[in-house]
């Protein structure tokens, strides 16, 4: 078995508990979410619920409000629910800063003192982040399917597979984008610093995105936020996946990965 594969396998093994726990929790919460959506549907409470939403949330949702405030919208809302996104972002940041942790603990010394190229620390982490994101989305999909199978009222149509896949891909791309940011920072600084900085940037970017939807004056700088290129509500309303947004998110991710490669190849490996 080759060294890089062993490194990947070890890293996956070390995060497996985190991945499984997070995945199971997210899948369970999503099944519960379907249960709530079914209950709201049975009671015909979507319109009342929409009326209860604060004007700021209505502003953020815009014309997609009616689509989001439906059985389909609640079920698919898992792909842009703030709580889910925060959990997935935290997981992505944790996985993407593994090289920083390895350098900090000195484990990287043991790896790189052997015939292993430095870039494998980053290449392995990219693979690990992609696998983690894929696994989380599959678990959420599984939770959705289980929830629908158990709780969906017979008179509602299940969300179309194409729409679900598009939303999952969209969210995956957003997470990969933040993985790139975290990895670039993690290649340069300590894990705690990289994690905290990425989280702060992500939080600021999310606030900026929300704010610009309410105050158009912020449009001039809103494009700086990766969340600007993530508009899942429109997908729920029936629009197709915006390829341009995907390309921009992918480009941010690639830039982050490239910076991480360049830093790791140049820097001194020290604690």
């Amino acid at each position, binding site marked *: 078995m080759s060294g890089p594969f062993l490194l990947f396998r070890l890293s996956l093994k070390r995060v497996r508990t985190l991945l499984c726990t997070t995945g199971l929790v997210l899948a369970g919460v999503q099944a519960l979410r379907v249960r709530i959506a079914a209950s709201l549907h049975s009671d015909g409470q979507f319109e009342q619920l929409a009326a209860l939403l604060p004007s700021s949330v209505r502003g953020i949702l815009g014309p997609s409000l009616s689509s989001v405030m439906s059985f389909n919208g609640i079920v698919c809302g898992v792909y842009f629910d703030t709580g889910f996104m925060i959990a997935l972002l935290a997981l992505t940041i944790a996985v993407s800063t593994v090289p920083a942790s390895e350098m900090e603990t000195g*484990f990287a*010394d043991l790896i790189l003192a052997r*015939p292993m190229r430095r870039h494998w620390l980053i290449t392995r982490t990219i693979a690990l982040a992609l696998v983690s994101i894929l696994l989380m989305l599959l678990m959420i999909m599984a939770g959705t399917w289980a929830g629908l199978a158990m709780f969906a009222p017979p008179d509602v149509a299940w969300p179309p597979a194409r729409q679900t896949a598009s939303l999952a891909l969209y969210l995956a791309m957003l997470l990969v984008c933040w993985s790139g940011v975290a990895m670039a920072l993690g290649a340069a600084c300590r894990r705690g610093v990289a994690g905290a900085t990425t989280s702060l940037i992500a939080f600021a970017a999310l606030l900026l995105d929300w704010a610009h939807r309410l105050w158009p004056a912020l449009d001039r700088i809103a494009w700086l936020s990766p969340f600007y290129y993530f508009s899942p509500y429109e997908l729920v309303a029936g629009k197709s996946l915006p390829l341009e947004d995907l390309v921009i998110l992918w480009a941010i991710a690639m830039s982050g990965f490239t910076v991480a490669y360049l830093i790791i190849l140049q820097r001194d490996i*020290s604690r």
Partner: protein
Amino acid sequence: MQNHQLAAPSPAEPQEPIPCGPGQNPRATTDRASAPAISIRGLAKRYGPITALKELNLDIGRGEIFGFLGLNGAGKTTTIRLLLDLIRPTSGQAFIFGYNCWTEGLDARARIGYLPGELGLYLDLTGLETLEFLAGLNRQPVDKRRRQELCDRLELPGRDLRRRLREYSAGMKRKLGIIQAFQGEPPLLILDEPTEGLDPLMQESFYGLLSDVKRGGATVFMSSHVLCEVERVCDRIALLRKGEMVLLSSVRESRRLAPRRVRVLFSKNVSANPEFPPGHELTEKASRLWRLEVTGPIGPLLALLEGLPVEDMEVEEARLEDVVLRYYREEGS
């Protein structure tokens, strides 16, 4: 004790420079099979205004056990990390068995077993998982019998290997570190403070291991603060001071730089106040006892004692520790 009467230690002799441009190694193309285990030429590392290592030149032959000494921050670990390409030099070159440590780093590191000073291990892994993972990163498969032999010698039984590292004591982690460095039977072992945390019995086992690998033809490059250990196991030593090599010598030669302690006991009171030749320092004078420190041959002292009522005389062998401590004190002052 005054040090100024010690023989002036000879400064580190610069090694013969090898003319070569960046990325080139004439030995690599001509005679890699007989290249030194480690060859360092003009190696320097600076961190901004701080010089961690200054123009180091050093050749370490195959089959040598080489001790790398110096106070904390002298540049020992920096040199080791440069050889492993963990940090990049400001200038200079280094070769492992003729392979450039940076341009041919994979080939160089394929021949190294490394024990870091501070082992960075994942505490959620078991000892066996750690050993197997690290063995898998080597080019050559690890002989499990060899690993078992190492575990037996260092008394790390299978029961302990199946435990998670968070349950390990510092000494057990050190043993694991030694096993991971030795298990691939590399031709070059780079060991940073190898016996730190080992109990005296395990230290003995480790010394036995070192002499076995030396018999097998391996080269050992080790840094250590334990001078009696270096004196016991090393063939040659280099001493670093503030990033600069100030002594490069065999252990035997180094000892000659230190004075021997001589105790002369007289059968009668002696009131003579002789003038001692250079290299002789009288450190204690009583009516029937003299204590001296003698650097160099002892013949002149014997001539001087002729005619005095000498009852007994003890000559204590010079210790490496005396030489090294002198350098350390000079650094401190």
